[in-house]
């Protein structure tokens, strides 16, 4: 590469491929395994319910199919680690390209900025990320880049397998999430691509009691942005420098989909020595 001249696409891809092969670029999986015992969003039972992941064996080298193994699977679009498209929420219902089949591909591979609020979330299950928190974060870490995926690290994924993951009480679930002013700031002033969380949804467990209710859903999707939830492995990402790949299934008029989310990151030693 010549200094001062932007490298061509071929040069960039060649360098990336070489980095992946040589190990200079690592791939970090941010996806939970899709399994029947993965919890889904709990809604009051008078509403339609989100179907958890289910799997039925069709054959496994047996009389149902002597030479092959395969399953039928069924689930909600919003089961497991999944993607929320703008059309998922009423605020985004009239937007163009609002469903998963219509989302422009360039939106699906983007840099990621990781906001680490794991300590605050450990101290307060109802921790709300506010604009003030974001401004303080930017003072310390620099401004959030336009077009980035903002990943909200709470280490909540580590509660999976215990009741604390959903943290259901009589007054509903309790888990951290963003306040309305934080979402307004990220969407309107930082023009992010999307917001990703480790919890069951992009909103706080008690997000229905905020104004607007479910501010992450309402503001993100009302402005054509995306959501990712039930992520894991955010503790393996650098604050900056990761490239996130999050491509939902191409479901006609789909509101979202389970997906494999992964990030390309510089090799660990490179990051720690930098």
């Amino acid at each position: 590469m010549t200094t001062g001249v932007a490298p061509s696409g071929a040069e960039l891809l060649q360098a990336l491929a070489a980095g992946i092969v040589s190990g200079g670029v690592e791939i970090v999986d941010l996806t939970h395994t899709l399994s029947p015992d993965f919890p889904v969003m709990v809604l009051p039972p008078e509403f339609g319910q989100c179907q958890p992941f289910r799997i039925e064996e069709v054959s496994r080298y047996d009389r149902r199919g002597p030479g092959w193994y395969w399953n039928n699977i069924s689930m909600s679009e919003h089961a497991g680690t999944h993607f929320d498209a703008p059309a998922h929420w009423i605020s985004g219902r009239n937007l163009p390209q609002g469903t998963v089949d219509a989302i422009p591909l360039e939106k699906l591979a983007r840099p990621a900025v990781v906001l680490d609020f794991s300590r605050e979330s450990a101290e307060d299950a109802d921790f709300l990320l506010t604009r003030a928190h974001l401004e303080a974060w930017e003072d310390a870490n620099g401004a959030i880049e336009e077009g980035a995926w903002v990943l909200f690290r709470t280490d909540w994924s580590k509660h999976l397998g215990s009741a604390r993951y959903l943290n259901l009480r009589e007054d509903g679930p309790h888990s951290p999430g963003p306040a309305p002013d934080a979402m307004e700031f990220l969407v309107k002033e930082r023009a992010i691509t999307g917001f990703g969380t480790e919890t069951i949804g992009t909103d706080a467990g008690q997000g229905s009691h905020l104004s607007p209710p479910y501010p992450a859903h309402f503001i993100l999707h009302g402005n054509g942005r995306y959501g990712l939830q039930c992520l894991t492995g955010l503790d393996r990402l650098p604050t900056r420098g990761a490239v996130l790949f999050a491509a939902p299934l191409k479901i006609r008029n789909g509101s979202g989909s389970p997906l494999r989310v992964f990030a390309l990151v510089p090799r660990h030693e490179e990051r720690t020595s930098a």
Partner: protein
Amino acid sequence: MTHPLGPPPKKDPQRVTRPPELPPVQRSRAALGLTAAAARGFFALQVCDECGTVAYPPRDACGKCLSPHLRFQPVADGGEVIAETVIRTSTDLYFRERTPWRVGMVKMDCGPSIVAHLHGDVAVPGRCRMVAKLDKGGNAVLVARPERWSEAMADDPEWRELTAHPKFRRVLVTSGREPVGQAVAAALSKAGASIVFVGIAEPWKPFAGEAQLKAIPNVQIMPLDLTDTSSVTELAGEIGGKTDIIVNTADHVRPGGVVGADSLVTAREAFEVNVFGLQRLAQAFGAGMRARGADGVNSAAAIVDVLPVQALANAPDFGFYSASAAARHSLLQCLRAEMRPGGVRVMSVFTGPVEDEWRQNVPPPKVAPAQIAKAVVTALAEGIEESFVGDIAKDVAARFAADPKVLERELGQ
């Protein structure tokens, strides 16, 4: 005196499990009337419409006046045991494993003399009550039991062959999240079940009654989600070899009919729990239970399904729920035939509307969970294949027997 049953020893893994042979199964069509009554826990014999003679054994024409108009009706069940014998050897594969076996001749107050099984506490000569029970092959047999009954008499070995008593048996109650499952678990524990496994779906969701359920003696909480094949298979892998009785209390209740239903989503959920849930249980546990139908004191004995009486006719307010119940009923009929070779009974406990949150707007009379629990224990202890809990269930059953079409029209008002 009946010898009180002691806790069975732990299974010797080197001994061959006794195969579940059946007593003679052939019956005439006329005799199946006796079986139908026994299945519902009644004692009925044929009575001639023309001359009033009570006939036994079942036949196609009256032995006195040759009229073909014989109908099964409840008759006086008292009688005098006039003779007895004890069978000590038999060429029949079932009975040769179970001798000595007491039989006797009973002169019934209603007329006929009957050769019947004799409960160990019946004195000869002496008074007795005649009851009809289903044997391991699902056919009615007549048993003379003492006039005065005590709980301890249920331990009689002949009697225990004709029931599925929970005492010393290991029971799986499939859904402990709801009051019905919790009440059933408590009742089975009280009835002497040695272990009551209680399935809990989605254990990360708290539920009312959790602490009380865990405090019931002999209760063991197990993860079990009937909508998840792998969950059912995993539980069967853990306890399938020592599950003697299954009581399926899972029931997905939602109001709504067919045209007005908002979507197929709820209907599908209902079928996943009420129909495919039962099938998953049968597939995961059925074969193992069928193989253990004669495995001693704590042999596999029964699968009990608690289902709404709308299985017999649709109640349009809960139209899809009724449809799932009808499918469940049909599945149980199939399962009954499939489990019979193993001597494992399949019992249906039909209920009227349960007193719960989903049926608050259903007018009384409603059924309390404790009533259902009592009916489940009674069905097991008495070997009753079909029971109806609550006034509505009993009424629907009677009207179904009279004319299903009339019932359909009435429920569909």
